[in-house]
């Protein structure tokens, strides 16, 4: 067998095992809307942990983080800080959200906004914004899959056909099985991901420099500026770091799918315990950084930094091992992609289409529409990945700039009884508008600040300001009592 055939066969075998687990988990269960999208609210600590780990450790951390370590250097450290700090935020906001979710039978983020602020247009707007900003995140996974397959084929399969194959597999997987299947595939994915990250993080620097320490010593001698901020960039300095870490750590659980996954936990205590443990999982990201930093010295001059991890793995190891790493990477893209498509299509059907266009729709019809939306969104994601390519990290940051705009509405809604619908709605529109304006006109970062953070500040000021000046009686007109 040729090297590319060995690598590709290994990848497809791993993906097939993952898919098989998913289909089996999805069999023999009655699939109503709640079962399909929140797994019947019965996940214990282990499955819940895997589900959360599964969607947070994505292609972004695998290929994107090493890609940025390679092409940008020091600014990449923001990833280690933001994920850790996001768990701190989750410790305080997820347990009360879970309680509300159980009390009011919430399944999605829009459900929360509807329940708290009592306005179906706000709920629908939240839904629309969530779906739109999930697209870059979904596109990221599809692009990553394309990179994996084309590198593993030793460039024999082009990126576009590779992405088409990937999309079909993801859509089929979600279409057939729903969230419980995804949680079980996460087990395989996380075990492989951990194994892959640690082994290449140690082995790659060892092969070329005799260890991680000597590798950093060599890099510090030849390219000292690469290891601190702003690294190889002009404008990603400390102000960018602080504003980006704040934006993204507040935003991690504002992703519609992360928000919805929280409702699948067994208890508020499960959620809190997860938050305590999860920072320890971020340590594995450092191993991915090691690979990217080694690549700076070993395979300099790649046009696309996102290729650096797989390029150096291909150069260092035999083809079957490239296949194992590629297979881990493929599952790492497919699991989150499946969760994203599932969340986005359920949201669209339940919180945008039904309330605005077809109030009389039954839950069964909503579930059916959601399934068809899986196909539609997959095709849109494919289109974007083929025609609008950019670096993986930039895609993620664009999504964050959007979804973090939900944060004021969530935090004020939870803890401040005077927060009003008008204030939160206006703030959200202003925030999303600012993100769109600054991003489309290429003003991110704005004077060294993350554009999403600038928008978030504006959003927050408007939401609190307007809520504050409204007469008190308007603000507690919410159906908040249990």
């Amino acid at each position: 067998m040729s090297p590319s055939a060995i690598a590709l066969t290994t990848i497809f075998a791993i993906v097939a095992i993952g898919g098989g687990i998913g289909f089996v988990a999805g069999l023999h269960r009655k699939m109503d809307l709640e079962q399909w999208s929140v797994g019947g609210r019965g996940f214990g600590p282990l499955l819940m942990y895997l589900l959360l780990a599964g969607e947070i450790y994505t292609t972004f951390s695998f290929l994107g983080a090493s890609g940025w370590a390679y092409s940008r250097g020091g600014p990449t450290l923001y990833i280690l800080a933001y994920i850790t700090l996001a768990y701190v935020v989750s410790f305080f906001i997820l347990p009360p959200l879970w309680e509300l979710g159980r009390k009011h039978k919430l399944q999605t983020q829009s459900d929360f906004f509807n329940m708290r602020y009592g306005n179906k247009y706000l709920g629908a707007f939240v839904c629309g914004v969530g779906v739109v900003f999930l697209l870059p995140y979904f596109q990221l996974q599809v692009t990553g899959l394309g990179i994996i397959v084309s590198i593993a084929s030793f460039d024999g399969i082009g990126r576009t056909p590779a992405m088409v194959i990937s999309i079909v597999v993801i859509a089929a997987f979600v279409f057939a099985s729903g969230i419980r299947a995804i949680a079980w595939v996460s087990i395989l994915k996380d075990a492989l991901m951990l194994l892959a990250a640690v082994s290449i993080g140690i082995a790659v620097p060892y092969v070329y420099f005799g260890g991680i320490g000597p590798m950093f010593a060599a890099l510090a001698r030849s390219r000292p500026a690469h290891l601190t901020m702003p690294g190889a960039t002009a404008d990603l300095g400390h102000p960018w770091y602080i504003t980006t870490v704040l934006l993204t750590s507040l935003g991690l659980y504002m992703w519609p799918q992360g928000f919805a996954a929280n409702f699948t936990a067994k208890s508020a205590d499960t959620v809190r315990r997860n938050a305590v443990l999860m920072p320890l999982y971020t340590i594995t990201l450092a191993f991915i950084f090691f690979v990217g930093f080694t690549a700076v010295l070993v395979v300099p001059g790649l046009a696309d930094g996102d290729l650096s991890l797989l390029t150096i793995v291909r150069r260092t190891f035999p083809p079957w091992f490239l296949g194992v790493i590629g297979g881990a990477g493929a599952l790492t893209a497919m699991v989150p992609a499946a969760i994203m498509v599932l969340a986005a299509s359920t949201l669209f059907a339940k919180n945008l289409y039904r309330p605005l266009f077809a109030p009389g729709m039954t839950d069964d019809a909503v579930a059916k529409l959601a399934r068809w939306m899986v196909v539609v969104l997959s095709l849109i994601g494919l289109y974007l990945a083929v025609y609008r390519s950019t670096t993986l990290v930039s895609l993620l940051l664009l999504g964050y700039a959007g979804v973090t705009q939900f944060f004021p509405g969530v935090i004020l809604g939870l803890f401040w009884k005077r927060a009003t619908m008008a204030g939160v709605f206006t703030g959200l529109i202003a925030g999303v508008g600012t993100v769109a304006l600054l991003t489309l006109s290429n003003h991110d970062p704005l004077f060294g600040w993350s554009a999403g953070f600038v928008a978030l500040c504006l959003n927050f000021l408007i939401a609190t300001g307007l809520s504050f000046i409204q007469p008190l009686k308007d603000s507690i007109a919410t159906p908040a009592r249990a």
Partner: protein
Amino acid sequence: MTVPVKKPSPIALLLGLIPFIAMCLSVPLWDRIYPMILGLPFNLAWLLSWTVLTSLCLVGAYRMEARRDDDHREDK
């Protein structure tokens, strides 16, 4: 349960603030290569140690919140 929900205890919040200061706001103080720690650049070593310390801060916060929940139940 009503909205707004019960606020977290001030001590738990303070414990949650510590990692934000250490890993985010204080970046100019620790973003350098030397001294290297166990072969890692100082900034990377600093952040890695804080992932563990953050977990410890949250263990403390968890204890605070769990105790408060218990007290709450006894009140009833």
